[in-house]
């Protein structure tokens, strides 16, 4: 359900999943997220398996996934999440912005965000994500 206030979309609160094997990196994302969308609920996972369990059990709406993880990397997980829930906006986060990574992200339908994550970049991604989710309602 969407309520419009002065033409602004998005007074919905969403559930966002943050996946990164580094606790410090998750803390950094949390900080940026709190600045951009303090009302939203945040779930964390430190690897692909945990992330899938979280996504299913908590019905998360949006996912931020670190690319560089042991085991299955962020791009593989992004593909799995999109398969689980094709309408879930997913962003792959990485310090490594080689063409290869960007291309693979596009292929699985995931956005790409640079590390370290800035408020601006996250804000843009979340605004876009909300629009897409709103359209699905």
């Amino acid at each position: 359900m969407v309520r419009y206030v002065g033409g602004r979309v998005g007074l919905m609160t969403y559930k966002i999943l943050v996946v990164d094997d580094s606790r410090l990196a998750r803390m950094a994302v949390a900080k940026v997220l709190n600045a951009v969308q303090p009302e939203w609920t945040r779930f964390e996972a430190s690897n692909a398996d945990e992330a899938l369990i979280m996504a299913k059990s908590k019905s998360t709406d949006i996912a931020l996934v670190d690319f560089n993880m042991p085991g299955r990397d962020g791009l593989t997980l992004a593909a799995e999440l999109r398969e689980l829930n094709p309408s879930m906006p997913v962003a792959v986060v990485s310090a490594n912005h080689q063409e290869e990574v960007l291309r693979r992200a596009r292929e699985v339908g995931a956005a790409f965000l640079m590390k370290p994550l800035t408020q601006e970049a996250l804000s843009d991604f979340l605004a876009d994500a909300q629009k897409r989710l709103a359209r699905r309602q």
Partner: protein
Amino acid sequence: MNEFLEAFLQEARELVEQASGDLLALEQRPDDKGRIDSAFRAFHTLKGSAGIVEFHAMARLLHAVEDVLGRVRSGAEPITAALITRCFGCLDQVLTWLRYIEEHGKLPDDDGSVGRLAAAFAGTPKDARRPGATPNLDMAGDFPQPARELLKTQIVLLGSEERSGAAGRFASVATVVLNVLRACGRTDQAAEFERKYLACVRDRDSRGLIDAIEALFHANEQTASTFEPRTVESIAQEPSARTLRVDVERIDALVKLAGEMTVVRNAFAHAVNLAQNGGASDTLAALLKSQHAALDRLVDDLQLSALNMRVLPLRHVFQRFPRLVRDLAEQLGKSVRLIMEGDDTEADKTVVENLAEPLIHVIRNAIDHGIETQEQRARSGKVPAGTIRIAAQREGDNVIIVISDDGAGIDTARIRAIAAERELLPPDALQAMSDEEVTNIVFMPGFSTAKEITGLSGRGVGMDAVGSAVERLGGRVSIQSGLGRGTSVRFSLPFSVMVSQVMTATAAGQEFGVPLENVLESVRVPAASVVAIGEAYAFVLRDATIPLIDLAQIVGGEKSFPAGRPNYDVMVVEIDGQLVGLVVEHLGERMDVMLKPLDGLIAGTPGVAGTTLVADGKVLLVLDLPELLQ
């Protein structure tokens, strides 16, 4: 320190350990793609973490390493021993920075030195292996094995005493060395060696030529020496961790006990009610008795549970050893294989943290004095690489750690000689001792032989320091050895460290400890308040008459009370419900001690609960009051 820096410190340390493990594994198996990938990711994540806390110097350095490892990962660059050494140097720098942050609570200032360090990683290293050469990595230098042997042989040849044919020897040695260098693609070093050779010929300096050849082995270490290698001592001084990882189950156990305590508390509240409302006294007594028993049991369980949270796997100490052994072996020119077993054995945090230094000292000794050089071992028919085995396991209330090596063993005849020379023991006692007992003389203070005081084996610390460190932890250490076969050092440590609190006091000129749980209070009693009751004495404390007992007399000293003093220092203790006033010379202070139960000769001594070593090395006897006052 803000939470980001705290999280950064913890994570960075873990990543450094992970990267170290990967690099060590890669030295043994350079083709292990899994390890290359893991090392790359560790450095990449470390770089990211540095960025998060805005430690730009560190991020820059790690970025340089990440770039090189990235090229290794994609096969564009080979992995070499020199590269691994440089990566280790980088990790050492990171650890130095982490120690700074831990101590000062903030990031160090950027002094621009990182630029130089990072540059060491940039570009193609001059010592790149020629494509097609077998990646056989030795511990020191970057030569393939056959080349190393050849160069070593030249050194041996030059060492020959024969005067005749010296010039010819020089020339043929030089030819071989130059050929080896050129075959390995080291044209720069070849040119330099040729210059040195010509100078040595002119001066007839065979020592100089030998040095020049030896310098070739260390040439690669020169480029790496832009980093400060961590000294062996600094490895031992890792700051004691302020956080612990604890199994959720152990925390749940504690939470459960806390819940049970609530039940007991409520029962006591009920008892208080009963007492206030004049309930039947035997009902009250029965209730109190049963709840006291429950509380007693709970407190014991709680103590155990809390102590169990303090235990750490020995891995925390052991994980530094592979790197340590590698560095020491390299420095001393020995070849050493390390085997570790039982690193998941647990012990109390205090024990684990304080064990590092003694264990490291023993390992040093094993590599320095125990394990022989490859040549010596070959002559004795042993395999060239020495083995050090560290094995840990739990045995009842104790944790046993054994460090053994297959080196030269201990020469008991020499120990007897030194002990006699230094008059550590009377000659007939020495005569009567078995070889095994003689071996353990190394733990006696004053034993350290001059040979041990190398820069490496410490500033003359010796095994007696190891012995007292272990004793302070409430443990024991012993040593066994077979000449020519090897040495084995056995540590036995308490699994959990029972820290008790005592109140100290002086009596009969000696300091004693009294368990704090027995002590009610300390008072100064004026002589006027002392009342004689028949043969005994007492004083009044808040409506209670408390018998006075002379502690000096009880512990077997001279009667010290009453002695015509204006005041007496009295420790009021409770024993089985009875209050007693112990008259002492001086009252001391409260202390936390690790109580060591009595064993050996004094095991049966009545009245003593245990002993503990105090800071100045003296032994404090802790009294068992009920026994003492019987």
